[in-house]
C-alpha cells in the first residue's frame, strides 16, 4: 500500500521546484560559485593586502560563512549542492578516471573531524581572516586536494570522508528543516532497479547516463541529512519520481537511532560523535578566539610554557577545548548516568549516544557568531567590489562607498541571543528524547547531568557573545 508523505515538498513549489528538478540545476548553481571562487583567488593573490578591502577575505569570512549557516537554518545543505569544487572535479574526471578504492580504515569521520579541527587551528594561527593571500591559497589548496583525492579514488570520497566544510554542513544540516527524502515508501518496496543508488546505464550497459548517490545513501534506507550533499542525483535517477525535498522537524534525526543507509547507527559511530563534539566545542572555541579574554589566557599560557611562540600556546588551548574539556564533561555525565540513573550502557557508548544532543547548541553558537559578522557587514561587499572594479582602471560601479556596512550591532545582539536560546532549547529537547529512549530505570536522573552540560555550555556561549570583541591578528602584542 502506498501513502505519499503530506510534508511540504520544495520540488513541488512552482519555479523553484522546476529549477531543482532540472537535470542541470546543480551545474547552473555551481558555475556562478566557481566564477566567484576564481575572482576570490585572483583578488586574494593580486588585490589589496588589507583584508577589509579584498574580495577573498570579505567574501570568505563575512559573506560565505554567514550565508552558509543561515541557509542551513532556513533550508538545508544547499551550499554543498552548489559546491564549485565539485564542478571542477566533474570536469577533471572526464580526463582522468579514478581507479582506486578509498582505504577501509579511512572510511569514517576521524580524518575529517581532525581536518575540521585543523582548519580552525590554522584559521587562528595564521589569522586567515586578516590575510587575503593565505585565504586565496586556502581556496587553491581546496581545489588541489579535491582534484588529487577524487582523481585517484572512486565515488565522492572527498565529500564523504575528507572535506571539513562538508562535515560542518552535514552536522549542521541535521537541524535543517528540509531533507532529500522518499515521498512514498510504498513505491520503493517493489523497486528492483534501485537507480537512486546504482544510477542508470545505457542499453549496452557501458555508459553511465545517470549517476546514483555517490555518497552511498540508498534513499529508502536514508534517514536524515548526514552525508547528503543535496546533489539531487537521486531525484534525477528515480524512475518513479519518488524523491523530493521534504520538510521535517529540525533536529528530529538526532532524537532517534535508526539504521541509516551509508552510515549505520549513530549510537555505534564514535567517529561521527567526535565530529559532533568538534562541531560543538569548536563553535565556542572559534568565538573565544575573537574576544578579549583569549589574549589574557594566551599570555598566561605562554608564561607557563616558557615560550614566545604562538603555535604551542594555541595548540594547548585547542587540546584543552576540543579534547580535555569534552572528555571531562561528557565522561562525568556518562558516569553519573550509569551510577545515579542506573544506565546499563558503558561509558563510551553513553558519550557517543548523548554527544548528538549538543549539536543544536553548537549550531546556535555558529549561527550567533557567523550571522553577527554577516549581518553587521553584509553591505561591505558593495564598496569592496566597487574598489576591485575601479582598480581595473575604470570605476564602472562608481567610487567605493566605504561607509556602507550592515545592521548596527545593537540590533544584531538580541538575534544572537535568540539563536543561542534556540540552540539550548533544541539541545535540551534532543537530550530529553534520548533519555526517554534509553533503557534506564531513572530517565529523569539520566537527563539532569546532560542537561547541566547543555546549560553550562550555553552560559559560556552567552558570556562569549557579550564579551568585547577584539579582532586581533597579533599574538600577545
Amino acid at each position, binding site marked *: 500500500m502506498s501513502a505519499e508523505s503530506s510534508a511540504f515538498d520544495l520540488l513541488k513549489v512552482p519555479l523553484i521546484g522546476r529549477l531543482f528538478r532540472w537535470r542541470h540545476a546543480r551545474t547552473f548553481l555551481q558555475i556562478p560559485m566557481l566564477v566567484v571562487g576564481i575572482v576570490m583567488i585572483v583578488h586574494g593573490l593580486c588585490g589589496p593586502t588589507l583584508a*577589509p578591502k579584498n574580495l577573498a577575505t570579505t567574501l570568505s569570512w563575512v559573506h560565505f560563512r554567514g550565508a552558509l549557516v543561515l541557509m542551513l537554518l532556513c533550508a538545508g545543505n544547499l551550499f554543498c549542492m552548489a559546491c564549485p569544487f565539485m564542478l571542477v572535479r566533474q570536469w577533471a574526471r572526464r580526463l582522468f578516471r579514478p581507479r582506486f578504492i578509498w582505504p577501509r580504515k579511512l572510511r569514517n569521520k576521524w580524518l575529517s573531524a581532525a581536518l575540521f579541527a585543523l582548519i580552525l587551528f590554522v584559521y587562528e594561527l595564521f589569522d586567515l581572516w586578516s590575510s587575503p593571500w593565505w585565504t586565496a591559497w586556502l581556496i587553491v589548496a581546496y581545489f588541489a586536494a579535491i582534484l588529487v583525492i577524487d582523481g585517484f579514488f572512486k565515488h565522492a570520497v572527498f565529500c564523504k570522508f575528507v572535506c571539513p566544510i562538508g562535515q560542518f554542513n552535514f552536522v549542521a544540516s541535521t537541524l535543517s528543516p528540509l531533507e532529500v527524502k522518499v515521498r512514498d515508501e510504498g513505491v520503493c518496496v517493489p523497486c528492483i532497479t534501485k537507480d537512486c543508488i546504482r544510477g542508470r546505464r545505457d542499453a549496452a550497459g557501458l555508459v553511465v547516463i545517470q549517476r546514483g548517490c555517490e555518497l552511498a545513501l540508498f534513499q529508502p534506507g536514508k534517514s536524515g541529512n548526514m552525508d547528503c550533499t543535496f546533489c539531487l542525483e537521486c531525484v534525477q535517477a528515480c524512475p518513479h519520481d519518488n524523491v523530493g525535498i521534504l520538510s521535517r522537524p529540525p533536529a528530529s534525526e538526532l532524537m532517534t537511532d535508526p539504521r541509516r543507509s551509508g552510515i549505520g547507527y549513530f549510537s555505534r559511530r564514535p567517529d561521527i560523535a567526535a565530529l559532533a563534539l568538534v562541531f560543538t566545542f569548536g563553535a565556542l572555541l572559534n568565538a573565544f578566539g575573537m574576544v578579549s579574554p583569549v589574549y589574557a589566557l594566551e599570555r598566561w599560557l605562554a608564561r607557563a610554557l616558557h615560550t614566545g611562540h604562538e603555535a604551542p600556546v594555541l595548540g594547548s588551548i585547542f587540546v584543552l577545548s576540543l579534547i580535555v574539556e569534552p572528555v571531562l564533561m561528557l565522561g562525568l555525565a556518562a558516569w553519573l548516568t550509569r551510577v545515579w540513573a542506573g544506565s546499563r550502557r558503558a561509558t563510551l557508548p553513553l558519550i557517543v549516544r548523548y554527544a548528538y544532543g549538543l549539536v543544536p547548541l553548537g549550531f546556535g553558537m555558529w549561527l550567533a557568531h557567523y550571522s553577527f559578522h554577516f549581518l553587521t557587514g553584509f553591505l561591505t561587499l558593495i564598496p569592496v567590489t566597487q574598489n576591485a572594479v575601479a582598480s581595473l582602471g575604470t570605476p564602472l560601479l562608481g567610487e567605493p562607498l566605504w561607509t556602507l556596512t550592515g545592521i548596527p550591532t545593537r540590533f544584531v545582539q538580541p538575534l544572537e541571543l535568540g539563536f543561542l536560546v534556540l540552540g539550548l532549547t533544541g539541545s535540551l529537547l534532543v537530550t530529553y528524547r534520548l533519555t526517554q529512549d534509553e533503557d534506564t530505570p531513572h530517565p529523569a536522573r539520566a537527563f539532569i547531568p546532560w542537561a547541566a552540560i547543555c546549560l553550562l555550555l550555553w552560559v559560556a556561549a552567552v558570556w562569549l557573545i557579550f564579551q568585547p570583541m577584539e*579582532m586581533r591578528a597579533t599574538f600577545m602584542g
Partner: protein
Amino acid sequence: MIEAEIAPRPARIGLATVTLRLSDAAGQPVRQARIALEADMSHPGMRPEFGEAREVAAGCYQGRLAFTMAGDWVVLMRVTLPGGQKLERQMEVNGVR
C-alpha cells in the same frame, strides 16, 4: 619622506591623534599637502573610519581618527603633494584596547 606616529600609545578605543612629518629629498618640510586618513580593522566586514590631517606647523600635519573597537587596526595615509603627486603610507596599530 613621511614620518608618522600615533598617540596615545598604547592605542585605546576612542579618538587618536595621527601626526605626520613630510619632508623632501633635501630634508626641507613639505607644506600645503593634503592628507586623508583612514583606519581599517584587520577583520573584513567592519566600517572604516575616516579623517583628515591638517598642517599645524611647517611640514607637520595632524588629524584625528576614531578607533571604534578593540583589536588590530591599520591606518592608511593618502598624501597629495602640492604638485599633485600622490603617496600612500600604511601604519599598523595593533592591540587597541
